[in-house]
């Protein structure tokens, strides 16, 4: 601010120093445990490379299955050119995209900066470090790539919707494929709905669909799509957590059915 330089001299607080008397540490702790739990489970599930399909169900961690041995595979078995020393799993080709979308998401950024980096741990609580670069410089300036992950996330919604359709077709012991709806179909459908609620409430989408214009009313659809995205955006945190939990549960459900632990009840 060259024409209005501001100089303020104040003491630096110590890490954790605060006058707050409430349970300020509880929320960052819950976020830390929730995100850590998901990262551990999803990493473990990705490395398994097995039990990710059952009947027409395909785990969202493995969708779309680009290479693989199931009936969902786009290009057949795993390619021979894949280096033998590298572990392989169809999930490795997939998880970076939704993972990148969540990693660069405005909601999650604020949440994990607090819970994992203590930047700050909670509002008005002293920080552990003195220097700060924020998202103005490398590496966090790369968070601006979020909109590109959004494009991929929208594409993944299409794949996951197709998976719901595939989850409506079951093979009988005689080898006949017939229409049906199982509990797994509903689980996969809820997964798409929650992921849709999360993706369509994205801040970048809100900007791209009309927010970037000063006259939103003159944007695409007369501003109605902007209003819809804004409506979902107000519940972005809720959808972020519900979709995170449900995508993990969907993988767990398909895995348990595939391993024979769960019985997939047919509704129709």
């Amino acid at each position: 601010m060259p024409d209005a330089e501001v100089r303020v001299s104040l003491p630096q607080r110590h890490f954790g120093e605060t006058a707050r008397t409430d349970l300020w540490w509880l929320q960052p702790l819950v976020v830390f445990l929730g995100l850590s739990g998901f990262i551990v489970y999803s990493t473990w599930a990705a490395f398994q490379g097995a039990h990710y399909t059952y009947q027409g169900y395909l785990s969202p961690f493995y969708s779309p299955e680009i290479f693989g041995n199931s009936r969902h595979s786009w290009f057949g078995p795993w390619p021979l050119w894949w280096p033998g020393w590298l572990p392989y799993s169809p999930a490795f080709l997939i998880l970076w995209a939704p993972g990148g979308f969540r990693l660069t998401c405005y909601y999650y950024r604020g949440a994990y900066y607090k819970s994992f980096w203590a930047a700050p741990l909670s509002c008005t609580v002293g920080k552990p470090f003195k220097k700060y670069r924020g998202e103005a410089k490398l590496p966090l300036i790369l968070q601006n790539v979020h909109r590109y992950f959004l494009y991929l996330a929208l594409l993944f919604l299409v794949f996951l919707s197709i998976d719901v359709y595939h989850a409506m077709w079951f093979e009988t012991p005689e080898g006949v494929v017939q229409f049906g709806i199982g509990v797994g179909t509903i689980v996969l459908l809820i997964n798409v709905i929650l992921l849709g609620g999360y993706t369509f409430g994205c801040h970048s989408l809100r900007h791209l669909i009309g927010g970037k214009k000063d006259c939103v009313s003159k944007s695409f659809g007369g501003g109605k799509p902007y209003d819809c995205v804004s409506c979902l955006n107000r519940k972005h945190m809720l959808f972020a957590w519900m979709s995170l939990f449900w995508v993990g549960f969907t993988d767990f459900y398909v895995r348990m059915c595939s391993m024979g632990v769960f019985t997939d009840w047919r509704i129709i």
Partner: protein
Amino acid sequence: MATATFKIWRGDASGGEYRDYTAEFDQGMVVLDVLHHIQAEQAGDLAIRWNCKAGKCGSCSAEINGKPRLMCMTRMSTLPVDEPITIQPMQTFPIIRDLVTDVSSNFKMKRSIKKFKPRPPDTEDGAWLMDQQDVERVQEFRKCIECFLCQDVCHVLREHHMHDEFIGPRHLVYAAALEMHPLDTEDRVADLKKLHGAGYCNITKCCTKVCPEHITITDNAIIPLKERIADEFYDPVTKLFRIFQPKKK
């Protein structure tokens, strides 16, 4: 009548300490009421800045039990009185005396933002035409009472004292009100990135939580500005499309 103990910070720029005061309060009283009682009966020299007592002037900002709040809008019934209630001045600004801080840095920050520059009137009688939806978007930002609680809670200013590199949430709201205004023709995006440090905000939403006017500062002002900065500086595809778009007149 109930009784509460207050730990009130007393001092000036050279230093100070917390002093205990015990005061009675009645149903419906706010913290400022009790402090006025203490000022009248126990500490006549206690410095407090206040004006409207209605949450509209933004003068009585302070930190109550470590949370930035307006003293006139914090009811005693919402505070635990089984332990002392800590009252301290805003920690982001230099202290003048007791609970009064020097917030003049904010006015310097505000002056650095390019002013409103409307397009020519739409009609011959000098009127402008605007859609209600466009007006409502920026109307939210005009609710700001400049209490500077959001500046106080922002860790970039509070912990790192980057007042000369980052204008803070209050002024990002002000910039958003101008930048998103349907009549405005000025371009502030480059300034927001280079001079005003919008990139320093890491979206912890503390400013939104403390706003007494319930302005959704982070989601409706700061993030949309960050997205406009991304359009102009970090998104090669959008930049390519912008070449073919008409510029603001």
